[in-house]
């Protein structure tokens, strides 16, 4: 699907703007706060029915206006045309229409066309808490599997019911046998979520690793590990590895490649989740909230630097030791204390970032994850997603930008790239359509040569 045309009304700083995209590669040039990012945000919103940066939906509405309106017209080579409209009134739900027909469920909206967005905010994948990485996984899988999103929505509802019941039991000593019922539903939907996450994560981490190695010219590599307190890791070997000082980094890399979680069967996951939930019940009741389950999972990003093994090793070891051990040992006795540990300490890159320093490295990892997302969507759907690159030249050094552009040149993906200046990007792009954005006005500049 290619986006042929978009209309933005009272969206961010746009009053009423319509723009057509005649070419696959679109370079959008403008100063800060002129509306470049908002244009990408609008495209992304049509894809996912959510913003990548707004914390409140109201932020998307132009100041002092009652609501916004977006309309995208998409087409493919067969001349099939699809129109997607999104409206939001200040006090009201989103209304989503496909070809003029109101869509009631977000699960039916998502995945009509796919988009991958790389922006300065993508850094939260590495620097942010577990919720950011879960959101990344959930949105990625929801785009390619509508049943996943339905299970996720059901899971969230069961979770809210269960948490409410926990609070009721705590205060009024309500019947605990009700809890078993919600547990079963939580396990049923949760297991479906975990299985799908394992399946996708398994592919994602391989793509991320490849891309990262290429981005760093083979000097560095990353290992991604899914972390779950609801599924037992049969052999905690891998998780112990970074903490064992005499273990060398190569073994660590091997361990993470195998992925112990991913070999689990549905029944094993169900049994594990059931056990974890049972073990956690006391603490859950005490806290009035559910402390284990896919809504608490995360993935760990470890950076392996081929050239500097020992000096950095000890640093990262100290940093990772405490949360990592807690993460892996999900024994019955330990689960309570483990649950008291703020989960944000687990799997974040915080310690790694201290050990390895540079923001550039973190950006590279974020980009590797995004490129992995791109490859995954291509593999699963057989179609190139729309690629949205927001302000990449300010984010990445020249070498990495060049690699990124090379990757994109080998795809037939429709691409939207924002930058403050046309140079040097314009020279690397294949006959881009150049647009300028100034004060929320978009103008077609010219047909530039490649």
């Amino acid at each position, binding site marked *: 699907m290619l986006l042929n045309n978009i209309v933005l009304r009272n969206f961010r700083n746009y009053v009423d703007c319509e723009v057509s995209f005649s070419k696959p590669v679109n370079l959008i040039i403008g100063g800060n706060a002129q509306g470049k990012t908002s244009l990408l945000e609008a495209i992304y919103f049509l894809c996912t029915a959510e913003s990548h940066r707004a914390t409140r939906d109201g932020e998307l509405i132009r100041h002092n206006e009652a609501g916004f309106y977006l309309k995208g017209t998409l087409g493919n080579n067969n001349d099939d045309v699809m129109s997607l409209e999104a409206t939001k009134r200040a006090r009201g739900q989103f209304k989503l229409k496909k070809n003029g027909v109101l869509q009631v*469920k977000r699960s039916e909206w998502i995945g009509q066309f796919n988009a991958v967005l790389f922006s300065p905010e993508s850094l939260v994948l590495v620097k942010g808490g577990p919720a950011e990485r879960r959101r990344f996984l959930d949105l990625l899988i929801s785009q390619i599997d*509508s*049943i996943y999103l*339905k*299970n996720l929505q*059901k899971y969230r*509802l*069961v979770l*809210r*019911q*269960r948490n*409410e*019941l926990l609070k*009721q039991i705590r205060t009024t000593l*309500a*019947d605990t*046998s*009700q809890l*078993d*019922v*919600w547990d*079963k*539903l939580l*396990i*049923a*939907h949760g297991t*479906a979520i975990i299985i799908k996450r394992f399946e996708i994560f398994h592919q994602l981490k391989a793509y991320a690793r490849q891309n990262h190695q290429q981005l760093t010219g083979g000097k560095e590599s990353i290992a991604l590990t899914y972390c779950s307190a609801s599924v037992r890791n049969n052999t905690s070997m891998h998780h112990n590895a970074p903490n064992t000082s005499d273990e060398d980094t190569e073994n660590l890399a091997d361990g993470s490649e195998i992925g112990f979680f991913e070999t689990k069967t549905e029944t094993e996951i169900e049994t594990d989740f059931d056990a974890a939930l049972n073990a956690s019940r006391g603490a859950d009741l005490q806290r009035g909230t559910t402390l284990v389950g896919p809504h608490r999972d995360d993935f760990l990003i470890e950076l392996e630097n081929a050239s500097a093994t020992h000096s950095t090793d000890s640093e990262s070891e100290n940093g990772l030791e405490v949360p990592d051990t807690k993460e892996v040992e999900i024994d019955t006795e330990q689960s309570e204390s483990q649950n008291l540990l703020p989960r944000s300490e687990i799997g974040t890159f915080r310690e790694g970032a201290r050990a390895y320093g540079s923001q550039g490295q973190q950006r590279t990892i974020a980009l590797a994850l995004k490129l992995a997302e791109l490859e995954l969507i291509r593999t699963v759907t057989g179609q190139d997603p729309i690629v949205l690159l927001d302000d990449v030249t300010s984010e990445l050094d020249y070498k990495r930008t060049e690699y990124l552009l090379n990757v994109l040149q080998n795809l037939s993906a429709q691409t939207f790239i924002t930058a403050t200046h046309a140079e040097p990007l314009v020279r690397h792009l294949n006959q881009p359509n150049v647009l300028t954005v100034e004060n929320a006005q978009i103008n077609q500049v010219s047909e530039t040569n490649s």
Partner: protein
Amino acid sequence: MQEYPKPLAKLITELQKLPTIGQKTAQRLAFFMLKLPDPETAQIAEAIAQVKQRLSYCDICGTITDTNPCYICTNPRRDRQVICVVEESDDLWAIERTNGYKGLYHVLGGVLSPLDGTGPDELGINTLFQRIRDATVNGEPVREVILATNWTTEGQATALYLTQHLETFEVAVTRIAYGIPVGGDLEYIDEVTLAKALEGRRKA
């Protein structure tokens, strides 16, 4: 600004208490009623008044009825050994319209939903258990309980709760099958997962 005459304003306000009736629809309905001949408005008013005065809940099954116990509970030709558990009275009538069911019913009056403050005590669950016990004492033991709550999350939770608690009774517990309608929606596929959870976990 001149407001509506008081009786008209009152009718519009009252009509808006009905589900799906907003202000505009309420106004339309009110003006429509104004134009109706007197006997017809009287009939509407009478019907509304009677609904509350003459109807009550059946002491046995909990359905809405104008006789107590209801026609179904007192019908000697119904199979007294089978009880179909439904959420609301309108579910009962939906099943009745199929003409395929000859057993009795039990109306819960809702579903388990902690978020709405609905627990087992707010539903006709204890009366169901008592009913099954009484039936055994009276020499007409219940053979089968069919769970026909909806396949929503809360309907499922309620069915699971009943399944769990009916294990101590000497009855077969079954769950209505979930048909995927013609041109079936993918929406229902995850329900299959749930059906499996419901069935598979009963043995535990």
